[in-house]
Protein backbone atom coordinates (compact mmCIF):
# COMPACT_ATOMS: atom_id res chain seq x y z
CA UNK A 1 0.00 0.00 0.00
CA UNK A 2 2.93 2.29 0.77
CA UNK A 3 4.26 1.43 -2.66
CA UNK A 4 0.95 2.29 -4.32
CA UNK A 5 1.02 5.68 -2.65
CA UNK A 6 4.68 6.24 -3.48
CA UNK A 7 4.00 5.36 -7.11
CA UNK A 8 1.05 7.76 -7.11
CA UNK A 9 3.25 10.55 -5.74
CA UNK A 10 5.96 9.90 -8.29
CA UNK A 11 3.44 9.78 -11.10
CA UNK A 12 1.91 13.00 -9.84
CA UNK A 13 5.33 14.63 -9.89
CA UNK A 14 6.06 13.55 -13.42
CA UNK A 15 2.62 14.64 -14.51
CA UNK A 16 3.66 18.23 -13.86
CA UNK A 17 6.36 20.20 -15.64
CA UNK A 18 7.89 20.88 -12.22
CA UNK A 19 9.57 17.49 -11.91
CA UNK A 20 11.03 17.67 -15.39
CA UNK A 21 12.32 21.20 -14.98
CA UNK A 22 13.86 20.34 -11.60
CA UNK A 23 15.61 17.34 -13.14
CA UNK A 24 16.81 19.34 -16.13
CA UNK A 25 18.02 22.38 -14.21
CA UNK A 26 19.76 20.40 -11.47
CA UNK A 27 21.43 18.16 -14.01
CA UNK A 28 22.66 21.20 -15.93
CA UNK A 29 24.11 22.75 -12.78
CA UNK A 30 25.71 19.49 -11.64
CA UNK A 31 27.15 18.89 -15.09
CA UNK A 32 28.68 22.35 -15.08
CA UNK A 33 30.29 21.75 -11.69
CA UNK A 34 31.48 18.35 -12.86
CA UNK A 35 33.09 19.77 -15.97
CA UNK A 36 34.68 22.61 -14.03
CA UNK A 37 36.22 20.06 -11.66
CA UNK A 38 37.55 17.98 -14.54
CA UNK A 39 39.03 21.10 -16.09
CA UNK A 40 40.75 22.08 -12.91
CA UNK A 41 41.98 18.51 -12.39
CA UNK A 42 43.51 18.42 -15.86
CA UNK A 43 45.21 21.75 -15.21
CA UNK A 44 46.85 20.64 -11.97
CA UNK A 45 47.47 17.01 -12.94
CA UNK A 46 51.22 17.54 -13.76
CA UNK A 47 51.85 19.09 -10.34
CA UNK A 48 49.79 16.39 -8.57
CA UNK A 49 52.00 13.70 -10.09
CA UNK A 50 55.00 15.14 -8.26
CA UNK A 51 53.29 14.63 -4.86
CA UNK A 52 54.12 11.57 -2.86
CA UNK A 53 50.50 10.64 -2.22
CA UNK A 54 48.39 12.55 -4.77
CA UNK A 55 44.57 12.70 -4.58
CA UNK A 56 42.90 10.54 -7.23
CA UNK A 57 40.19 11.62 -9.63
CA UNK A 58 37.48 10.40 -7.29
CA UNK A 59 38.75 12.53 -4.47
CA UNK A 60 39.43 15.50 -6.69
CA UNK A 61 36.31 15.42 -8.85
CA UNK A 62 33.59 13.20 -7.36
CA UNK A 63 33.77 14.32 -3.74
CA UNK A 64 33.30 18.04 -4.59
CA UNK A 65 30.55 17.07 -7.04
CA UNK A 66 28.62 15.27 -4.31
CA UNK A 67 29.25 18.06 -1.84
CA UNK A 68 27.68 20.50 -4.31
CA UNK A 69 24.87 18.05 -4.97
CA UNK A 70 24.13 18.07 -1.23
CA UNK A 71 23.69 21.86 -1.24
CA UNK A 72 21.63 21.70 -4.40
CA UNK A 73 19.34 19.06 -2.89
CA UNK A 74 18.95 21.28 0.15
CA UNK A 75 17.63 24.02 -2.12
CA UNK A 76 15.53 21.80 -4.37
CA UNK A 77 13.83 19.48 -1.89
CA UNK A 78 11.53 22.13 -0.38
CA UNK A 79 10.27 22.89 -3.89
CA UNK A 80 9.19 19.29 -4.22
CA UNK A 81 8.17 18.50 -0.67
CA UNK A 82 6.00 21.55 -0.10
CA UNK A 83 3.14 20.16 -2.18
CA UNK A 84 3.01 16.74 -0.52
CA UNK A 85 0.28 17.38 2.04
CA UNK A 86 -0.37 21.11 1.75
CA UNK A 87 -1.57 20.89 -1.82
CA UNK A 88 -3.81 17.91 -1.15
CA UNK A 89 -5.30 19.86 1.69
CA UNK A 90 -5.83 22.93 -0.44
CA UNK A 91 -7.44 20.92 -3.26
CA UNK A 92 -9.52 18.98 -0.75
CA UNK A 93 -8.16 15.69 -2.04
CA UNK A 94 -6.74 14.62 1.31
CA UNK A 95 -10.09 13.11 2.26
CA UNK A 96 -9.64 10.52 -0.48
CA UNK A 97 -6.66 9.16 1.42
CA UNK A 98 -8.21 9.67 4.84
CA UNK A 99 -11.37 7.75 4.00
CA UNK A 100 -9.51 4.92 2.28
CA UNK A 101 -8.55 1.97 4.49
CA UNK A 102 -5.05 3.33 5.13
CA UNK A 103 -3.34 4.13 8.38
CA UNK A 104 -1.81 7.55 8.85
CA UNK A 105 1.61 5.87 8.92
CA UNK A 106 1.02 4.37 5.49
CA UNK A 107 -0.05 7.72 4.07
CA UNK A 108 2.99 9.53 5.47
CA UNK A 109 5.46 6.82 4.48
CA UNK A 110 3.95 6.55 1.02
CA UNK A 111 4.41 10.26 0.46
CA UNK A 112 7.91 10.18 1.95
CA UNK A 113 9.14 7.32 -0.22
CA UNK A 114 7.57 8.82 -3.31
CA UNK A 115 9.63 11.95 -2.80
CA UNK A 116 12.73 10.02 -1.77
CA UNK A 117 12.57 7.98 -4.98
CA UNK A 118 12.54 11.19 -6.97
CA UNK A 119 15.51 12.56 -5.04
CA UNK A 120 17.29 9.25 -5.60
CA UNK A 121 16.75 9.81 -9.30
CA UNK A 122 18.55 13.18 -9.09
CA UNK A 123 21.37 11.51 -7.16
CA UNK A 124 21.39 8.71 -9.72
CA UNK A 125 22.05 11.24 -12.48
CA UNK A 126 24.99 12.64 -10.53
CA UNK A 127 26.22 9.10 -10.01
CA UNK A 128 26.00 8.44 -13.73
CA UNK A 129 28.31 11.39 -14.38
CA UNK A 130 30.79 10.14 -11.78
CA UNK A 131 30.79 6.69 -13.34
CA UNK A 132 31.51 8.37 -16.66
CA UNK A 133 35.01 8.98 -15.31
CA UNK A 134 35.73 5.34 -16.02
CA UNK A 135 36.27 6.48 -19.59
CA UNK A 136 39.51 8.16 -18.59
CA UNK A 137 40.78 6.33 -15.51
CA UNK A 138 39.77 4.24 -12.54
CA UNK A 139 37.55 5.28 -9.66
CA UNK A 140 37.84 4.74 -5.94
CA UNK A 141 34.57 2.84 -5.52
CA UNK A 142 34.70 2.94 -1.72
CA UNK A 143 34.80 6.72 -1.66
CA UNK A 144 32.03 6.86 -4.25
CA UNK A 145 29.85 4.47 -2.23
CA UNK A 146 30.36 6.48 0.97
CA UNK A 147 29.36 9.67 -0.84
CA UNK A 148 26.35 7.99 -2.39
CA UNK A 149 25.13 6.62 0.93
CA UNK A 150 25.69 9.93 2.67
CA UNK A 151 23.80 11.83 0.01
CA UNK A 152 20.85 9.41 0.11
CA UNK A 153 20.64 9.66 3.89
CA UNK A 154 20.86 13.42 3.69
CA UNK A 155 18.11 13.47 1.06
CA UNK A 156 15.88 11.45 3.35
CA UNK A 157 16.42 14.04 6.11
CA UNK A 158 15.46 16.87 3.77
CA UNK A 159 12.43 14.92 2.54
CA UNK A 160 11.20 14.12 6.06
CA UNK A 161 11.70 17.70 7.19
CA UNK A 162 9.91 19.06 4.13
CA UNK A 163 7.06 16.60 4.56
CA UNK A 164 6.58 17.70 8.15
CA UNK A 165 6.39 21.35 7.20
CA UNK A 166 3.91 20.43 4.51
CA UNK A 167 1.58 18.89 7.11
CA UNK A 168 1.53 22.13 9.07
CA UNK A 169 -0.21 24.36 6.56
CA UNK A 170 -2.50 24.34 3.57
CA UNK A 171 -0.33 26.74 1.63
CA UNK A 172 2.47 25.01 -0.30
CA UNK A 173 4.60 28.13 -0.56
CA UNK A 174 4.57 28.67 3.20
CA UNK A 175 5.57 25.04 3.69
CA UNK A 176 8.30 25.50 1.07
CA UNK A 177 9.92 28.57 2.57
CA UNK A 178 9.65 27.15 6.09
CA UNK A 179 11.38 23.91 5.19
CA UNK A 180 14.03 25.74 3.17
CA UNK A 181 14.72 27.94 6.16
CA UNK A 182 14.83 25.01 8.54
CA UNK A 183 17.13 22.88 6.42
CA UNK A 184 19.42 25.80 5.66
CA UNK A 185 19.49 26.67 9.34
CA UNK A 186 20.37 23.13 10.34
CA UNK A 187 22.98 23.02 7.60
CA UNK A 188 24.97 25.97 8.90
CA UNK A 189 23.99 25.89 12.56
CA UNK A 190 27.59 25.03 13.51
CA UNK A 191 28.92 28.30 12.10
CA UNK A 192 27.98 30.06 15.29
CA UNK A 193 30.04 27.71 17.43
CA UNK A 194 33.79 28.14 17.42
CA UNK A 195 34.26 25.40 19.99
CA UNK A 196 34.45 22.08 18.08
CA UNK A 197 32.81 20.22 20.98
CA UNK A 198 29.77 22.49 21.00
CA UNK A 199 26.35 20.83 20.83
CA UNK A 200 25.59 22.95 17.78
CA UNK A 201 28.10 20.94 15.78
CA UNK A 202 26.19 17.86 16.64
CA UNK A 203 22.99 19.19 15.09
CA UNK A 204 24.63 20.42 11.92
CA UNK A 205 23.63 18.29 8.94
CA UNK A 206 26.72 19.55 7.12
CA UNK A 207 29.04 18.22 9.80
CA UNK A 208 27.49 14.77 9.61
CA UNK A 209 27.68 14.76 5.84
CA UNK A 210 31.35 15.79 5.82
CA UNK A 211 32.61 12.44 7.02
CA UNK A 212 30.67 10.61 4.30
CA UNK A 213 32.10 13.10 1.84
CA UNK A 214 35.62 12.20 2.93
CA UNK A 215 34.86 8.52 2.45
CA UNK A 216 34.33 7.76 6.08
CA UNK A 217 31.17 5.77 6.89
CA UNK A 218 30.65 6.60 10.51
CA UNK A 219 27.75 4.67 12.01
CA UNK A 220 27.12 7.58 14.39
CA UNK A 221 26.53 9.95 11.47
CA UNK A 222 24.39 7.37 9.72
CA UNK A 223 22.33 6.87 12.87
CA UNK A 224 21.91 10.63 13.21
CA UNK A 225 20.50 10.89 9.70
CA UNK A 226 18.16 7.95 10.20
CA UNK A 227 16.98 9.25 13.54
CA UNK A 228 16.49 12.72 12.13
CA UNK A 229 14.28 11.37 9.33
CA UNK A 230 12.35 9.11 11.70
CA UNK A 231 11.65 11.93 14.13
CA UNK A 232 10.15 14.17 11.46
CA UNK A 233 8.13 11.30 9.99
CA UNK A 234 6.67 10.59 13.42
CA UNK A 235 5.95 14.30 13.85
CA UNK A 236 4.10 14.28 10.53
CA UNK A 237 2.03 11.24 11.48
CA UNK A 238 1.16 12.75 14.84
CA UNK A 239 0.31 16.05 13.28
CA UNK A 240 -2.14 14.48 10.80
CA UNK A 241 -3.63 12.25 13.47
CA UNK A 242 -4.05 15.22 15.75
CA UNK A 243 -5.93 17.03 13.03
CA UNK A 244 -8.38 14.15 12.79
CA UNK A 245 -8.84 14.17 16.55
CA UNK A 246 -9.02 17.87 17.17
CA UNK A 247 -10.09 19.17 13.74
Amino acid at each position, binding site marked *: MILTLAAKELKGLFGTPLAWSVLAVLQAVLAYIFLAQIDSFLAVQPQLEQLANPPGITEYIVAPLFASAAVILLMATPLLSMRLIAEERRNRTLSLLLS*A*PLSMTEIVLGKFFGLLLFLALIIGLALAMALGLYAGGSIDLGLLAANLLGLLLLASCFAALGLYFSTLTDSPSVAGIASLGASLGLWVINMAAADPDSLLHYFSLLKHFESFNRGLIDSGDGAFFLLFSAVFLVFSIRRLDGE*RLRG
Partner: protein
Amino acid sequence: MNEITLLASDLTRRYGSHTAVNGVGFELRQGEVLGFLGPNGAGKSTTMQMLTGNLAPSSGSIEICGIDLLERPKAAKALIGYLPETPPLYRDLSVHEFLTLSAKLHRVPRKQMSALVERAKLRCGLDQAGGKLIGSLSKGYQQRVGIAQAIVHNPRVVILDEPTVGLDPIQIREIRELIRELGGEHSVILSTHILPEVESICDRVQIMHQGQLVFSDSIDALRRYRQGNTLEVGLRHPPAPGELEAINGVSRVEAAEDGLWRLHFAPGGDPTDTLVALAAERRWGLFRLQPAQTSLEEVFVHLTRSEALV
Protein backbone atom coordinates in the same frame (compact mmCIF):
# COMPACT_ATOMS: atom_id res chain seq x y z
CA MET B 1 -35.91 -6.49 8.35
CA ASN B 2 -32.61 -6.19 6.54
CA GLU B 3 -29.25 -6.32 8.22
CA ILE B 4 -28.02 -3.18 9.94
CA THR B 5 -25.06 -1.80 7.98
CA LEU B 6 -24.34 1.33 9.96
CA LEU B 7 -24.97 2.05 13.59
CA ALA B 8 -24.05 5.37 15.12
CA SER B 9 -24.73 6.03 18.73
CA ASP B 10 -24.50 9.19 20.70
CA LEU B 11 -22.05 10.94 18.34
CA THR B 12 -20.77 14.21 19.67
CA ARG B 13 -18.19 16.49 18.17
CA ARG B 14 -16.90 19.59 19.87
CA TYR B 15 -14.61 22.26 18.49
CA GLY B 16 -13.34 24.01 21.56
CA SER B 17 -16.42 25.25 23.34
CA HIS B 18 -18.60 24.98 20.26
CA THR B 19 -20.55 21.74 19.88
CA ALA B 20 -21.02 21.03 16.18
CA VAL B 21 -22.79 17.69 16.59
CA ASN B 22 -24.54 16.76 19.79
CA GLY B 23 -25.64 13.24 20.71
CA VAL B 24 -26.64 12.07 17.26
CA GLY B 25 -27.57 8.42 16.98
CA PHE B 26 -29.22 6.40 14.22
CA GLU B 27 -29.04 3.21 12.25
CA LEU B 28 -29.06 2.33 8.58
CA ARG B 29 -30.19 -0.93 7.04
CA GLN B 30 -29.10 -2.76 3.93
CA GLY B 31 -30.72 -1.28 0.82
CA GLU B 32 -31.97 1.84 2.53
CA VAL B 33 -31.51 5.40 1.30
CA LEU B 34 -31.33 7.79 4.21
CA GLY B 35 -31.55 11.54 3.67
CA PHE B 36 -29.80 13.98 5.94
CA LEU B 37 -31.59 17.24 5.77
CA GLY B 38 -30.75 20.51 7.40
CA PRO B 39 -29.78 24.11 6.83
CA ASN B 40 -26.14 24.94 6.21
CA GLY B 41 -24.11 24.63 9.37
CA ALA B 42 -26.49 22.15 10.98
CA GLY B 43 -23.73 19.58 11.41
CA LYS B 44 -24.49 17.33 8.43
CA SER B 45 -20.99 17.43 6.97
CA THR B 46 -19.35 17.02 10.37
CA THR B 47 -21.50 13.95 11.03
CA MET B 48 -20.56 12.49 7.66
CA GLN B 49 -16.88 13.16 8.25
CA MET B 50 -17.14 11.25 11.49
CA LEU B 51 -19.00 8.36 9.85
CA THR B 52 -16.20 8.01 7.30
CA GLY B 53 -13.31 8.29 9.74
CA ASN B 54 -12.12 11.66 8.46
CA LEU B 55 -12.81 13.17 11.84
CA ALA B 56 -12.74 11.49 15.22
CA PRO B 57 -15.86 12.00 17.34
CA SER B 58 -15.38 13.61 20.74
CA SER B 59 -17.57 10.84 22.11
CA GLY B 60 -19.88 8.15 20.80
CA SER B 61 -19.34 5.11 18.64
CA ILE B 62 -19.79 4.05 15.03
CA GLU B 63 -20.17 0.53 13.74
CA ILE B 64 -20.04 -0.41 10.08
CA CYS B 65 -21.56 -3.86 9.53
CA GLY B 66 -20.71 -4.71 13.11
CA ILE B 67 -17.10 -3.46 12.88
CA ASP B 68 -16.17 -0.63 15.21
CA LEU B 69 -14.81 2.25 13.12
CA LEU B 70 -12.70 3.65 15.93
CA GLU B 71 -11.14 0.37 17.00
CA ARG B 72 -10.63 -1.26 13.60
CA PRO B 73 -10.57 1.69 11.22
CA LYS B 74 -8.99 -0.13 8.29
CA ALA B 75 -11.51 -2.98 8.20
CA ALA B 76 -14.43 -0.59 8.66
CA LYS B 77 -13.24 1.98 6.12
CA ALA B 78 -12.95 -0.70 3.45
CA LEU B 79 -16.74 -1.04 3.62
CA ILE B 80 -17.45 2.66 3.13
CA GLY B 81 -17.52 4.81 0.04
CA TYR B 82 -17.46 8.55 0.64
CA LEU B 83 -18.04 11.56 -1.54
CA PRO B 84 -17.17 14.72 0.44
CA GLU B 85 -18.73 18.09 -0.21
CA THR B 86 -15.88 18.95 -2.57
CA PRO B 87 -15.12 15.85 -4.65
CA PRO B 88 -11.52 14.78 -3.96
CA LEU B 89 -10.31 14.62 -7.54
CA TYR B 90 -6.77 14.68 -8.89
CA ARG B 91 -7.18 16.95 -11.85
CA ASP B 92 -4.02 15.71 -13.57
CA LEU B 93 -5.22 12.12 -13.79
CA SER B 94 -7.55 10.69 -16.39
CA VAL B 95 -10.88 9.27 -15.20
CA HIS B 96 -9.65 5.74 -15.69
CA GLU B 97 -6.35 6.31 -13.86
CA PHE B 98 -8.12 8.01 -11.01
CA LEU B 99 -10.70 5.27 -10.52
CA THR B 100 -7.98 2.63 -10.68
CA LEU B 101 -5.99 4.51 -8.05
CA SER B 102 -9.04 4.80 -5.86
CA ALA B 103 -9.75 1.08 -6.21
CA LYS B 104 -6.13 0.28 -5.32
CA LEU B 105 -6.27 2.50 -2.25
CA HIS B 106 -9.35 0.59 -1.16
CA ARG B 107 -7.47 -2.69 -1.50
CA VAL B 108 -9.50 -4.10 -4.35
CA PRO B 109 -7.88 -7.40 -5.40
CA ARG B 110 -5.88 -7.05 -8.61
CA LYS B 111 -8.01 -9.63 -10.43
CA GLN B 112 -11.26 -7.73 -9.93
CA MET B 113 -9.69 -4.32 -10.50
CA SER B 114 -10.50 -3.69 -14.14
CA ALA B 115 -13.96 -5.26 -13.94
CA LEU B 116 -14.92 -3.07 -10.99
CA VAL B 117 -13.50 0.09 -12.55
CA GLU B 118 -15.42 -0.59 -15.76
CA ARG B 119 -18.59 -1.21 -13.79
CA ALA B 120 -18.26 2.01 -11.82
CA LYS B 121 -17.67 3.94 -15.04
CA LEU B 122 -20.71 2.37 -16.65
CA ARG B 123 -22.97 3.01 -13.69
CA CYS B 124 -22.01 6.66 -13.50
CA GLY B 125 -22.26 7.20 -17.26
CA LEU B 126 -18.52 7.70 -17.65
CA ASP B 127 -17.85 4.95 -20.16
CA GLN B 128 -17.15 7.49 -22.89
CA ALA B 129 -15.00 9.73 -20.68
CA GLY B 130 -12.47 7.19 -19.38
CA GLY B 131 -9.47 8.67 -21.16
CA LYS B 132 -10.23 12.32 -20.42
CA LEU B 133 -8.35 14.32 -17.82
CA ILE B 134 -10.52 15.08 -14.83
CA GLY B 135 -9.49 18.74 -14.91
CA SER B 136 -11.02 19.11 -18.37
CA LEU B 137 -14.42 17.69 -17.43
CA SER B 138 -17.50 19.77 -16.70
CA LYS B 139 -18.75 20.15 -13.15
CA GLY B 140 -21.46 17.55 -13.68
CA TYR B 141 -19.02 14.98 -14.97
CA GLN B 142 -16.58 15.71 -12.16
CA GLN B 143 -19.40 15.04 -9.72
CA ARG B 144 -20.01 11.71 -11.44
CA VAL B 145 -16.35 10.84 -11.13
CA GLY B 146 -16.66 11.68 -7.44
CA ILE B 147 -19.57 9.27 -7.08
CA ALA B 148 -17.80 6.62 -9.15
CA GLN B 149 -14.83 6.95 -6.81
CA ALA B 150 -17.13 6.32 -3.87
CA ILE B 151 -18.68 3.14 -5.29
CA VAL B 152 -15.79 1.60 -7.22
CA HIS B 153 -14.77 -0.80 -4.47
CA ASN B 154 -18.35 -1.99 -4.05
CA PRO B 155 -18.79 -0.71 -0.50
CA ARG B 156 -21.66 -1.72 1.75
CA VAL B 157 -22.35 1.87 2.80
CA VAL B 158 -22.16 4.83 0.44
CA ILE B 159 -22.05 8.28 2.00
CA LEU B 160 -22.64 11.24 -0.28
CA ASP B 161 -22.33 14.80 0.98
CA GLU B 162 -24.53 17.10 -1.11
CA PRO B 163 -24.15 15.11 -4.32
CA THR B 164 -26.31 17.37 -6.48
CA VAL B 165 -25.01 20.79 -5.51
CA GLY B 166 -24.07 22.97 -8.45
CA LEU B 167 -25.52 20.72 -11.13
CA ASP B 168 -28.05 21.67 -13.78
CA PRO B 169 -31.57 20.17 -13.60
CA ILE B 170 -30.89 17.40 -16.11
CA GLN B 171 -27.74 16.34 -14.32
CA ILE B 172 -29.56 16.46 -11.00
CA ARG B 173 -32.19 14.10 -12.36
CA GLU B 174 -29.54 11.70 -13.63
CA ILE B 175 -27.63 11.71 -10.36
CA ARG B 176 -30.85 11.14 -8.42
CA GLU B 177 -31.67 8.15 -10.60
CA LEU B 178 -28.20 6.80 -10.00
CA ILE B 179 -28.57 7.20 -6.25
CA ARG B 180 -31.91 5.45 -6.24
CA GLU B 181 -30.31 2.64 -8.19
CA LEU B 182 -27.43 2.45 -5.70
CA GLY B 183 -29.98 2.11 -2.92
CA GLY B 184 -30.87 -1.30 -4.33
CA GLU B 185 -27.72 -3.06 -3.18
CA HIS B 186 -25.81 -0.58 -1.06
CA SER B 187 -27.03 1.45 1.85
CA VAL B 188 -26.85 5.12 1.03
CA ILE B 189 -26.71 8.21 3.20
CA LEU B 190 -26.93 11.51 1.45
CA SER B 191 -27.10 15.03 2.75
CA THR B 192 -28.85 17.94 1.18
CA HIS B 193 -30.67 21.10 2.05
CA ILE B 194 -33.25 20.60 -0.66
CA LEU B 195 -36.46 19.11 0.66
CA PRO B 196 -37.93 17.77 -2.61
CA GLU B 197 -34.67 15.94 -3.25
CA VAL B 198 -35.10 13.93 -0.11
CA GLU B 199 -38.72 13.23 -0.95
CA SER B 200 -37.85 11.98 -4.40
CA ILE B 201 -34.99 9.61 -3.47
CA CYS B 202 -34.97 8.65 0.17
CA ASP B 203 -36.77 6.00 2.16
CA ARG B 204 -36.10 7.67 5.42
CA VAL B 205 -35.20 11.16 6.46
CA GLN B 206 -33.38 12.73 9.35
CA ILE B 207 -33.45 16.42 9.95
CA MET B 208 -30.60 18.06 11.76
CA HIS B 209 -30.70 21.44 13.35
CA GLN B 210 -27.91 23.06 15.34
CA GLY B 211 -26.08 19.77 15.72
CA GLN B 212 -29.04 17.76 16.90
CA LEU B 213 -31.41 15.33 15.25
CA VAL B 214 -34.82 16.93 15.42
CA PHE B 215 -36.72 14.53 13.19
CA SER B 216 -36.13 10.96 12.17
CA ASP B 217 -38.84 9.03 10.38
CA SER B 218 -39.98 7.64 7.06
CA ILE B 219 -40.58 9.83 4.04
CA ASP B 220 -44.35 9.36 4.30
CA ALA B 221 -44.32 10.69 7.82
CA LEU B 222 -42.44 13.76 6.63
CA ARG B 223 -44.91 14.24 3.82
CA ARG B 224 -47.86 14.03 6.18
CA TYR B 225 -46.12 16.33 8.51
CA ARG B 226 -45.46 18.84 5.78
CA GLN B 227 -48.96 18.84 4.40
CA GLY B 228 -50.44 19.33 7.81
CA ASN B 229 -54.00 20.45 8.26
CA THR B 230 -54.15 23.47 6.04
CA LEU B 231 -55.89 24.23 2.77
CA GLU B 232 -54.94 27.01 0.44
CA VAL B 233 -58.01 28.48 -1.18
CA GLY B 234 -58.31 31.06 -3.95
CA LEU B 235 -61.66 32.84 -4.28
CA ARG B 236 -62.55 35.50 -6.83
CA HIS B 237 -65.45 36.86 -4.78
CA PRO B 238 -64.48 36.04 -1.23
CA PRO B 239 -67.15 36.22 1.45
CA ALA B 240 -66.52 37.67 4.88
CA PRO B 241 -63.96 35.60 6.78
CA GLY B 242 -66.64 34.77 9.30
CA GLU B 243 -68.52 32.81 6.67
CA LEU B 244 -65.46 30.69 5.97
CA GLU B 245 -64.83 30.14 9.63
CA ALA B 246 -68.38 28.90 10.01
CA ILE B 247 -67.70 25.96 7.71
CA ASN B 248 -67.82 22.72 9.59
CA GLY B 249 -64.30 21.65 10.64
CA VAL B 250 -62.50 24.92 9.95
CA SER B 251 -60.72 26.11 13.02
CA ARG B 252 -59.04 29.25 11.80
CA VAL B 253 -58.88 31.39 8.68
CA GLU B 254 -56.10 33.69 7.68
CA ALA B 255 -55.54 35.79 4.62
CA ALA B 256 -52.44 34.84 2.67
CA GLU B 257 -50.62 36.71 -0.08
CA ASP B 258 -52.06 37.09 -3.63
CA GLY B 259 -55.68 37.10 -2.44
CA LEU B 260 -55.46 33.56 -1.17
CA TRP B 261 -56.92 32.27 2.05
CA ARG B 262 -55.43 29.72 4.35
CA LEU B 263 -57.93 27.48 6.11
CA HIS B 264 -56.66 25.56 9.11
CA PHE B 265 -58.75 22.62 10.18
CA ALA B 266 -58.75 20.13 12.98
CA PRO B 267 -57.10 16.74 12.27
CA GLY B 268 -59.60 14.42 10.59
CA GLY B 269 -62.04 17.20 9.80
CA ASP B 270 -61.12 17.91 6.20
CA PRO B 271 -63.62 20.56 5.04
CA THR B 272 -62.81 20.27 1.32
CA ASP B 273 -66.16 18.81 0.21
CA THR B 274 -68.24 21.29 2.15
CA LEU B 275 -66.10 24.15 0.96
CA VAL B 276 -66.47 23.20 -2.72
CA ALA B 277 -70.21 22.77 -2.39
CA LEU B 278 -70.60 26.11 -0.62
CA ALA B 279 -68.37 27.90 -3.08
CA ALA B 280 -70.49 26.67 -5.99
CA GLU B 281 -73.78 27.46 -4.26
CA ARG B 282 -72.83 30.98 -3.17
CA ARG B 283 -70.77 31.83 -6.26
CA TRP B 284 -67.50 32.63 -4.50
CA GLY B 285 -65.59 31.98 -7.73
CA LEU B 286 -63.34 29.20 -6.47
CA PHE B 287 -60.24 29.09 -8.68
CA ARG B 288 -57.75 27.32 -6.52
CA LEU B 289 -57.85 24.68 -3.84
CA GLN B 290 -54.83 22.77 -2.66
CA PRO B 291 -53.38 21.35 0.50
CA ALA B 292 -50.81 23.86 1.68
CA GLN B 293 -47.28 22.49 1.91
CA THR B 294 -45.12 23.91 4.58
CA SER B 295 -41.75 25.02 3.36
CA LEU B 296 -38.56 23.60 4.74
CA GLU B 297 -38.04 26.69 6.88
CA GLU B 298 -41.44 26.23 8.46
CA VAL B 299 -40.68 22.58 9.10
CA PHE B 300 -37.47 23.59 10.83
CA VAL B 301 -39.20 26.22 12.89
CA HIS B 302 -41.85 23.71 13.88
CA LEU B 303 -39.41 20.96 14.68
CA THR B 304 -37.09 23.07 16.71
CA ARG B 305 -40.01 24.34 18.72
CA SER B 306 -41.92 21.15 19.34
CA GLU B 307 -39.73 18.75 21.21
CA ALA B 308 -42.54 16.17 21.15
CA LEU B 309 -41.49 14.91 17.74
CA VAL B 310 -37.97 14.02 18.64
